[in-house]
């Protein structure tokens, strides 16, 4: 996978986030502050604007630019969290021009570790980590078996979707929803939902 693959991923994320903006905001309205869809949409729109001005030389450089832009432009907690994830993903990939599924899996593992550290969140806290961590495991397992990108990304996207759905019965222990205590039960976590969208976009682009 080269820089153009990751550009296509970012484009697909931008499209999906815009399309699902209202659903994400509705999820956030139930247990947060009703801005997750709008914030992510603003962030990825800013990413597109940044990419219109410069063409990064490698997948790593592209993902670092995505992360830095999300950190500066999102405005909510998802900015530092997704920004850190993309930046760590890019930093770990370095300046390689081509990335294998196994290298991408290792970099995504570094990204979820960085997110866990920043947010002090563990699996089961009802956050994006509940979608991201199982996706990283599924991707790593598929890559270790020598799966092609399309199969590996499909496994990761399915694991993220299952992880996001599994946040519904959880009580939030991190993030804005944790202020609601038991009232956070019965709702899907918006950050887990958007993580599933981002990995779903990876599956879409990998299947082309």
């Amino acid at each position, binding site marked *: 996978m080269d820089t153009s693959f990751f550009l296509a991923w970012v484009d697909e994320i931008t499209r999906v986030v815009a399309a699902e903006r209202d659903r994400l905001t509705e999820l956030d309205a139930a247990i947060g502050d009703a801005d997750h869809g709008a914030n992510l949409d603003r962030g990825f729109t800013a990413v597109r604007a940044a990419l219109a001005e410069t063409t990064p030389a490698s997948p790593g450089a592209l993902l670092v630019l995505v992360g830095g832009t999300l950190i500066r432009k999102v405005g*909510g907690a998802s*900015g530092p969290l997704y920004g850190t994830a993309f930046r760590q993903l890019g930093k770990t990939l370095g300046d390689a021009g081509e990335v294998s599924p196994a290298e991408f899996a290792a970099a995504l593992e570094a990204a979820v570790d960085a997110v866990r550290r920043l947010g002090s969140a563990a699996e089961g806290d009802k956050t994006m980590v509940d979608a991201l961590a199982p996706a990283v495991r599924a991707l790593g397992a598929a890559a270790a078996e020598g799966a092609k990108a399309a199969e590996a990304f499909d496994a990761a996207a399915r694991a993220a979707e299952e992880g996001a759905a599994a946040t519904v019965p959880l009580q939030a222990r991190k993030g804005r929803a944790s202020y609601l205590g038991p009232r956070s039960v019965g709702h899907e976590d918006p950050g887990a939902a958007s993580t599933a969208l981002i990995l779903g976009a990876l599956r879409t682009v990998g299947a082309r």
Partner: protein
Amino acid sequence: MVGIVLISHSAALAAEVAALAAAIGGPEVPVAAAGGTDDGGLGTSPDKVAAAIKAVDRGAGVILIPDLGSSVLTARLLEEPDSVVIADVPFVEGAISAVVTAGADAPLAAVLRAAEEAREIRKL
């Protein structure tokens, strides 16, 4: 003198707490408010926080006091060991303690400790 940066989701809240802390702690302490997003909405702007850190840095270190959520995460991204540090404290009480102690020309560690003691101070 140690500088203090107040990071809130709300520009008005950050500005008012900064004004209150300066009124109690003395106007000579470098205090900056970094509230709200770049377009004036509720949220956190890393650019505003970075500019505020620069504005209050007199070489003795800077204390970041975030309110919650993205303010905390943004502060964590801008931490620098031994020079830009986060105080995990109640927003108003922590700000006042930090500014009062900074005004006595205390070093960074002492200002941080004073801010953190604010968590234990009971009102009744």
